[in-house]
C-alpha cells in the first residue's frame, strides 16, 4: 500500500524540487528511523547535502535525520522534502524517483540488526 501512495505530489519551484512524502509504514515512527531518503531527477540521483526534510514546522538535512530520535513522523502527516537544484530546471516533463528506507524498531534479527523497509515511488512533473 505504502509505495502506491508514498509520493503525494512533486513540483519544481524557485530552483527547488519539492516533494510531499508519506511515511511508508502503518505506525508512526521517530524521524531517526528514516535511514534512506534518496531522490533522483530524470534518472540522476540528487545530492543528499542539498536535500532537507520538513515536518511539523521543523526542518533538517538528510545527515541530521539519525539524531532525530525525539521527533516523530505520524502516519497521518506528510513530510516536505526539498532539494536545492544547482542549475535552473529545464522546461518540459521531468521524472522524479523517490526511495524511502525506514527502520522498523521492533523487527530486530537475532544478530541485532533492525529491518529496513524500502519503498520506491515515481512521479512525472509536467510544466
Amino acid at each position: 500500500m505504502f509505495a502506491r501512495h508514498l509520493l503525494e505530489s512533486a513540483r519544481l519551484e524557485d530552483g527547488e524540487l519539492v516533494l510531499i512524502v508519506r511515511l511508508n509504514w502503518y505506525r508512526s515512527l521517530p524521524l531517526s528511523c528514516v535511514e534512506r531518503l534518496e531522490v533522483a531527477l530524470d534518472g540522476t540521483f540528487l545530492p543528499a547535502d542539498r536535500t532537507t526534510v520538513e515536518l511539523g514546522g521543523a526542518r533538517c538535512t538528510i545527515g541530521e535525520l539519525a539524531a532525530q530520535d525525539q521527533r516523530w513522523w505520524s502516519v497521518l502527516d506528510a513530510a516536505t522534502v526539498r532539494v536545492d537544484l544547482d542549475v535552473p530546471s529545464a522546461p518540459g516533463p521531468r521524472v522524479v524517483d523517490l526511495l524511502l528506507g525506514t527502520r522498523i524498531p521492533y523487527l530486530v534479527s537475532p544478530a541485532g540488526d533492525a529491518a529496513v523497509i524500502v519503498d520506491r515511488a515515481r512521479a512525472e512533473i509536467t510544466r
Partner: protein
Amino acid sequence: MSTPRLGVVLFSLGGLFWQRRLTLAGCLEQVAALGPDQGIELVGAQSLRSYPDVSDEEIRGFRAAVDRTGVVPVSYCAYLERARSSSRVLSPLESVELVEAEVEVARRLGFPAVRVNTATPEVLPALARLADRTGTTMLVELATEPRTDPAVAALLEELDRLACPDLGVIQDFSAFVQAIPAPYLADAEAGGTPRAALAVIARAWSAGRPVDEAVEEVLPLPLSPEEMGASIQTAHIAYALFRAGDPAGLRDVLPHLRHVQAKFFALDAQDAEPCIPYPELIAILRETGYAGRLDSEFEGFLWDDDLDALDQIARQQRELVRLWNG
C-alpha cells in the same frame, strides 16, 4: 448453540486510516456497526495522533467515542521496540522500559490489557512485575506456535512456571499459514520483484526451507540490482509474516490463551480465507471450551487497495460464527 465473542483489531482498518478516509472515531463507528459487543484492539502508535505523548484531549475523544459506539476496549497493542533509537539496539529486557509508558496510555484509554508483540522467557518476569504494579493484564502475542517453534514452547514453559494470573498470550492465526497469500505475491511483483524470484521464494517457503536458503536461490538469478534488492526484501517479509505452523499446536497454547487474532488476507467467494485452516482451528477452540474473543485481523489492505476492509471483516465474522456453529 452459543456464539463466540467477536472483535476487530483496528490495524485491519489501517489502510483507510492511513489514507485519511476514516478517523479513529470513524473506525469505532464502523466496528460498532458490525453488531453488539464488538471488542477492539488498538495500536497506539498507529491510531493516536499525538503518540507518543498522548494528549488528554485525544484520550477524552477516544473514551467518548467508545461510550457513544458501545465497542469494548480489549487490548492495547505495544511493541518491544529494541531499535527505536538509531544509536543503540536495546536488549529485549531493556526495551520493557518503553512498554511501561504504553501501559500508562492504555490505562488512560480504558484498556484492561496490553499486548506486546513478542517476548523471550527472560522478559516474562519483568512483564509479570509490570502487571502486578499497574493492575494491567500483560499479553504476549504469538506469531508462531509451540510445535514448530521451540522459542514459543520455551515461552509457554516459563508461563507455566510463573503461574501469574495477569500474564497470558494472544494467538495470531498467522502462525498457521499454509501458502503465501496471492495478494502479497501480486503486490511484490508490482513493486519490482520479478516473477522468477517470486517462484523461487514461494517454492522454498512451501517446502519449509529457511529464508537464507530462499535468498541463496534468488542470488544467481539474472536480476538488476533493484530487482535483486526487491526480491530479497520480498523473501524476508514473506518469511516474517507467514508462518507454517501445526494447527494442533493451538491446543498447547490454550492454558494461557486470552484471545485470538483471527488473521486473514483476502476471503474467497465462499468467505473462506484460503491460506489458513480456519475450520480446523475453530473446531479446536470450540471443542476445548474456549470462551475468549475472536478478533478479526485483516491484513490484505497492505497489498491490494481494491479489497474493501469493512466488507472483508463483516464477511469474516459471519464465517467465524458459521464455523463455530458447525
